[in-house]
């Protein structure tokens, strides 16, 4: 199996899908400059630089998607999605429904998110839950290079608008990616580690913090099950509920603000569907209700650490 960074995996996915389907095209601020190999292979009609204008980039993509193309757009950093909010939420997410199903919007929006670069809250804002809350959109956030590729390929083939969040902290960490046609279905979580004592649920780089916590816990005789959501919408409720029914204990962790975050939805789901199995209260670990600081120690402190996750699991075992 070749080893790729997520950045390379993303380009590989786009290239394969562009070869396969001539309606796939990509544009964004610096897309043609930065993705040189794609420009070389597919030419300036299908790999385009745009003006610096997220609203019109997204609007153009929605229009194109509604009328026969499959655009992939790069809006760079997740906070810049705010300029494109109207086009993504009000147009891409609603016009299929409002038109009685006459249109579909096969469109993928890439955005980087999360701490790691010390760029501050106007570049680092884990706002993925906003899009989970908006009807008509799908939301993906991978944690491994293989999933970056497999989920992106599936997202490009999906007939719905997909928000594809890329955790900055992972982008340059290489990992194995299966050769050839590697597709990962949307809406299917991955169980990264099996265990019967406590369920740890996360996505993006927090999955790795959970895996590390599980390793520590194993040394203490606690068997943690680690679930990587991969897709936040549609959410794989079956995998979540089945795991908690088995372990009776749940820690859900993400870097995004805890308040109204994805963890809140999961906690509610488990309370509704697996309440009887719970042996201890659900724990949610997440970022504070504060913008992400640029200053390194403050930025790092926003994300749930492996130690915090392990400590939460231990507390649940004693409860």
């Amino acid at each position, binding site marked *: 199996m070749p080893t790729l960074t997520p950045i390379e995996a993303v380009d590989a996915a786009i290239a394969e899908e562009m070869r396969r389907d001539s309606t796939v095209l990509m544009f964004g*601020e610096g897309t043609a400059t930065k993705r040189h190999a794609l420009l070389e292979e597919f030419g300036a009609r299908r790999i385009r630089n*745009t003006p610096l204008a997220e609203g019109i980039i997204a609007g153009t993509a929605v229009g194109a998607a509604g009328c026969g193309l499959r655009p992939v757009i790069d809006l760079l950093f997740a906070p810049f999605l705010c300029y494109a909010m109207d086009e993504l939420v009000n147009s891409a997410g609603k016009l299929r429904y409002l038109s009685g199903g006459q249109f579909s919007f096969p469109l993928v929006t890439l955005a980087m998110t999360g701490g790691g670069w010390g760029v501050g809250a106007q570049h680092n804002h884990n706002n993925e839950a906003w899009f989970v809350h908006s009807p008509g959109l799908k939301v993906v956030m991978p944690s491994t290079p293989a999933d970056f590729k497999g989920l992106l390929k599936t997202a490009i083939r999906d007939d719905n608008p997909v928000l594809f969040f890329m955790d900055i902290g992972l982008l340059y960490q290489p990992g194995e990616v299966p050769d050839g046609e590697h597709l990962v279905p949307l809406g299917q979580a991955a169980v990264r580690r099996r265990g019967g004592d406590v369920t740890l649920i996360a996505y993006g780089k927090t999955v790795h913090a959970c895996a590390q916590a599980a390793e520590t816990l194993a040394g203490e005789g606690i068997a943690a099950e680690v679930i990587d959501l991969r897709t936040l919408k549609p959410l794989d409720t079956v995998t979540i509920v089945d795991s908690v029914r088995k372990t009776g204990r749940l820690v859900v962790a993400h870097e995004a603000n805890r308040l109204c975050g994805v963890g809140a939805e999961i906690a509610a789901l488990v309370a509704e569907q697996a309440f009887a199995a719970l042996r201890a209260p659900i724990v949610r670990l997440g970022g504070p209700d*504060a913008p992400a600081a640029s*200053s390194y120690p403050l930025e790092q402190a926003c994300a749930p650490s492996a130690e915090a996750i392990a400590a939460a699991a231990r507390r649940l075992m004693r409860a």
Partner: protein
Amino acid sequence: MTRPASENELPQLYEQMLLIRAYEEKIVEASAAGKVPGTCTSVGQEAAAVGVVNALGGADLILTNHRSAAHLIARGADPGRLLAEVMGRSAGYCQGKSGSLHISVKELGVVLTSTIVGAELSLATGVALAQGMLGKPGIVVCFFGDGAACEGAFHESLNLASVWNLPILYVCENNQWQAFVHRRETMRRDHVADWAVPYDIPARTVDGNNVEAVLAAARAAAAEVRASGRPFLLETYTYRSRGHFEPDDQAYVDPAERAAWAARDPIAACRDRLLATGRLTASQDAALADKVQSRIAVALAFAEASPYPALSEMTTDVYA
């Protein structure tokens, strides 16, 4: 009302430009060594910043963006506190929470700095509205790039400022680049000044690499804003000599373009004029270079000695 740069002004402008360049070059060096985070430097654009800022009065308010060091230093910001901010230290102007990209210094009238491209243009209308309604003196100066002019916010801002008669001096620093895209690829015309016309806003383009020309044009423009109470757009035509963000190999930049602009370096040009007219001697020039270098060395030492903010700062200043 409008004065050209006087005899004794030019050496001061020159020294400010030297200080800015020394500051930026220190960051380039220290970030390459991994000691300081990379920044969007203003190298090559010093004259545009120094010329405009020196044309303003103390009551005027400035909005800037991610590429702010030249504006801030020209306005009198302390390089030590700026560096501390870039390094995320508690002695920084924003307690280290900003880093390099959104440095506001309210005490200097540099307000609401944002790195969302176009945000400064949205906010400037409100700043000018508040100034007027609160009866405060001072016009509002909004620095933005040619890239920002492509955001809808630019057009919405100019339209509203014109309709509401807001005293805003829009200063477009047309440095030819919009991150990794040349403005040729994103705009049909060479000049953002042309885009002010349909909004009934007077506009002018000036050689942004000639500090005296910028100062004179900015004085005239500011005087017009003060007299009319209406917006004006001044475009400083200049060049981003380094990459978008440090480090950046600029592999995407045409070497001929870089060379042509390097030959028009604003600091070298100013030095040549000062030396040729006898307003500066070679030894005075060398002394100035030493002076700014030692100021920057002190600044870096100050920043390095400043602690990181305490973790308890993570959730302070979120709400008023």
